[in-house]
């Protein structure tokens, strides 16, 4: 109940932030140089043709009217019509967000698991070779441009070893997967399409690995640091001094206390992972949100850019909210 009230209050606080994002993107998009209409008209179009097209997309209206229309649409979940495709942006978003979320959620989860397991392991062996090794490896991963790493993994995993399917999509089309959420693994499970599941999983391995490698370092560093802090805390020493069993100590005392700081960092990492998908999706022909947003930006597809930024901002603040809730659950000291 308390959590619900907390979530409610936080959701209310999100409104000004999201409104700010909405206004800012709206303006940003319009001050960007470039004319979206010209990109769809083809070379033979005349000024009248352009004016007609402008009218079609409501771009001839005064700015405030455009904004009010946009806002009105947002309230009903309508992001407008894409200038490039002429289709409903909302529908496109629905199609694009699933795959990207699948990619990001899996990568962040993988990174989290790896970071927690290795971080605690590393902290308990602080300053031995293994600890140093893990930290350095994580840092190296963190220092690589994702597009470079992606290409290397494709070269090795697909071209040389042939272990992974061609990086051209997310699932083998022959498996006839019916899209529901857009997240192929989920869809495969929902439709009990096991060949599709296997195929989707195989397609996911390399991109997920790429993203995870790139983001794991800060998580690992943080887990290790807080595990160390716990290990050195008076409380942990006290528990040890009372002769508690190692298993009890690890589970009840070390792990949970270590996890306390992870959610908010995971949320941050989630944010940067979303950013990285633009590059990772390109390299792996992963037609997701990032590619869509990037294309929208390059072609100044106003509704698409607006929608993509607002959606990512929404996802981002929601993830932070979730992180706060998880934090509150993990850490009884948090006042909510």
């Amino acid at each position, binding site marked *: 109940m308390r959590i619900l009230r907390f979530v409610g209050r936080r959701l209310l606080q999100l409104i000004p932030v999201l409104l700010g994002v909405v206004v800012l993107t709206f303006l940003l998009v319009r001050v960007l140089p470039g004319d979206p209409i010209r990109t769809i008209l083809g070379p033979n179009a005349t000024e009248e043709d352009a004016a007609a097209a402008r009218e079609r997309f409501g771009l001839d209206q005064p700015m405030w009217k455009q904004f009010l229309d946009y806002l009105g649409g947002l309230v009903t979940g309508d992001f407008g019509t894409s200038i490039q495709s002429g289709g409903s942006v909302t529908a496109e978003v629905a199609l694009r967000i699933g795959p990207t979320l699948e990619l990001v959620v899996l990568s962040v989860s993988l990174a989290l698991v790896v970071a927690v397991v290795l971080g605690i392991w590393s902290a308990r062996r602080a300053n031995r070779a293994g600890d140093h090794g893990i930290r350095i490896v994580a840092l190296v991963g963190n220092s690589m441009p994702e597009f470079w790493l992606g290409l290397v993994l494709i070269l090795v995993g697909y071209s040389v070893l042939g272990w992974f399917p061609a990086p051209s999509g997310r699932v083998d089309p022959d498996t006839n997967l019916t899209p529901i959420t857009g997240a192929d693994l989920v869809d495969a499970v929902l439709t009990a399409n096991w060949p599709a599941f296997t195929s989707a999983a195989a397609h996911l391995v390399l991109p997920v690995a790429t993203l995870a490698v790139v983001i794991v370092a800060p998580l690992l560093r943080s887990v290790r640091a807080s595990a160390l802090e716990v290990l050195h*805390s008076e*409380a942990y020493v006290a*528990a040890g*001094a*009372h*002769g*508690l069993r190692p298993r009890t100590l690890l589970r*009840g005392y070390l792990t949970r*206390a270590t996890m*306390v700081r992870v959610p908010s960092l995971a949320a941050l990492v989630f944010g940067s992972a979303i950013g990285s998908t633009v590059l990772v999706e390109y390299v792996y022909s992963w037609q997701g949100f990032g590619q869509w947003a990037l294309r929208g930006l390059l072609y100044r597809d106003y509704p698409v850019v607006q929608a993509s930024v607002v959606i990512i901002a929404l996802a981002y603040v929601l993830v932070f909210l979730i992180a706060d809730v998880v934090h509150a659950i993990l850490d009884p000291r948090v006042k909510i």
Partner: protein
Amino acid sequence: MLSIENLSVVIRRRGREVAALSNVNLRVDAGEVVGLVGESGGGKSMVARSIVGLLPGGADATGAVHFDGADVLRMDDAALSTHRGHGAALCFQNPRGALIATRTVGRQLTDRLTTHQAMDTKRAREAARELFEQVGIRNPARRLDAYPHELSGGMAQRVMISLATGCAPGLLIADEPTTGLDVTLTREILRQFRLAADADRRGVLLISHDLASIAAVCDRVVVLYAGTVVESGPADQVLREPSHPYTRALLASVPDIDGRPVVATAGAMPLMRTAPDDCPFAPRCAHATDTCGQRRPPTTPVPHGTDGWTLACFHPQRGPLTAEAAAADPTLYVTAKTAAADPTVPGTGAAGPAGGTLTKDRAAAPDTVPAAGTPVLAIDDAHVVYRSRFGRGGHHALRGVSLTVAAGETLGVVGESGCGKSTLAKLMLGLVDPASGSVEVAGQRYAGLRGRKLRQLRTRAQMVFQDPIGSLSPRRTVGDSIAEPLRALGVPAAERAQRVEAVLDRMELDRSILQRQPHELSGGQAQRIGIARALVGRPELIVFDEPTSALDVTVQAQILKVIADVAADSSRGSVFISHDLATVRGFSDRVVVLYLGRVVEEGPVDEVFDNPKHPYTRALLASAPSLGTGFGGPRVELTRDLEEADAATGCPLAGRCPFVTDRCRADDQQLQPYGASRAACWRVPEIPALLKGSDIRV
């Protein structure tokens, strides 16, 4: 049961070595409470850690720690893990920090029970409830599901004790179990240890820097100085007629509510790099002779003492340490030569203040601008509310406080933790704004002033803080900090330097200290700097907010001496805030007793201490530890902890007062004159009678 033999611990770190313990011998038997006392850094915790085999990294231990026949230092993993907890269980100094924040206290306790007493979870929970009840936790079933942060300090300490006893240890070790607790709670917690020894036949090792507080429950005491045992013996004898000069100095530095003078010993305890081959106290000791500097005094029985009373000194002292004797004891004065030899505290050492008795002597008054008697501070019916950021309401920290301080006067403010003392201090300095009521300093109100005017008025009142190092900006030099009020006043640089030097001289600090950073200072030095900063702008009012509570006992005495000097200036008013009644008694003219943001009693210091009117004052006095006669009159004990009492309407003390009636719960109490002092209790006239008849002591 426990017998430590010739234990030495050396901690080796790159660049430095510390001989934390040198040839310590100590024993604790079943059913016995042994007190281990000494100043900070003396090695008390190290002894405790050795007993449970938890030495810090880089530590090398020699000697033996025999526990029930086995040597802890040579135990293997398995033996050690049963020894820890089940053999000897440690209660940690900072109970809240020693509890894992993310696990309920109940589970932390059942973890111990299942580990050491082989109980199943259900049984363990039941046993946990009983244990909680035993240590005096009300509503134990509910508290089992509480997280540590939901507990008050006293409660957390009780939980910690239950955790330790939950391991069913042969030996219970308590490292400073009452530091940071209120006087009223301290007694209660200490009783728990006595109980563990008497009822469960456990051995108890009580560690404290404060002799007086643990005196009552100990069978024997061991005094540590610089990692060596300087004296040990039966508690009553050692405390009454200490034989080692250090023990005597230690006892004499502590203020006592019976008002006996405090004696300061210059210098500070040295940090030993190697096991000493002389008497480590010699540099501070007035009895020291050449021998003391050449050989380490062996541990010998006290010549005039009883069995088991030993000391390590070539010059054992005799006689009780009564107030008069202490004041007259020439041994407690220190020579400049020996202080200079102290390597650890160069500032204090070099210009070391001569020790001396602290008395109210209103001598020299250098700048006598306002005539004595002019009010420099007037607070009228002030309320302070800390608003919470979002919700309505907030915390009502002060509820209608009125008081005045005249030039030349020292006002003492006492009260339990959280009663609003620091808030009152901030109010006096204009750091918090009163929700209603007014504050006037030097005839001017803070309210309504802005910008430059406000800043100028602020310099009229200065404060000395509780945390001496924390009140100095970590990235500024000491010189910067002291000169800050002058800079704000727009004093030109040359004059600034001059005045800073003058005030340094007054604090008996060396000039070289100006270039240092706060972390390079000892607590005593830092507090002198703090006082210097407060003085340098020649304010009308100085507020001392618990200026010595973070300091070591002997350093505390030195600072108290400085403060007494400062407070003696008739040109300004002083406010001295402390939770320690004895300290306040030392040099206040008047005392105000705060309780939950209200003044419950106010009057001349001797009247309030000798003839308390309010039941609360009486209770405070009764529970104050004392090595001397202590509080003479009939005692009152409060029936509950502060946290559990509610003060919705009526007398705030109603929830805890043994004399409570329905009228107390209904009516607000105003200060009313009773003799020389005033108290906010309508039953004052009846209390003597009530006390006579019944035995109020619980």
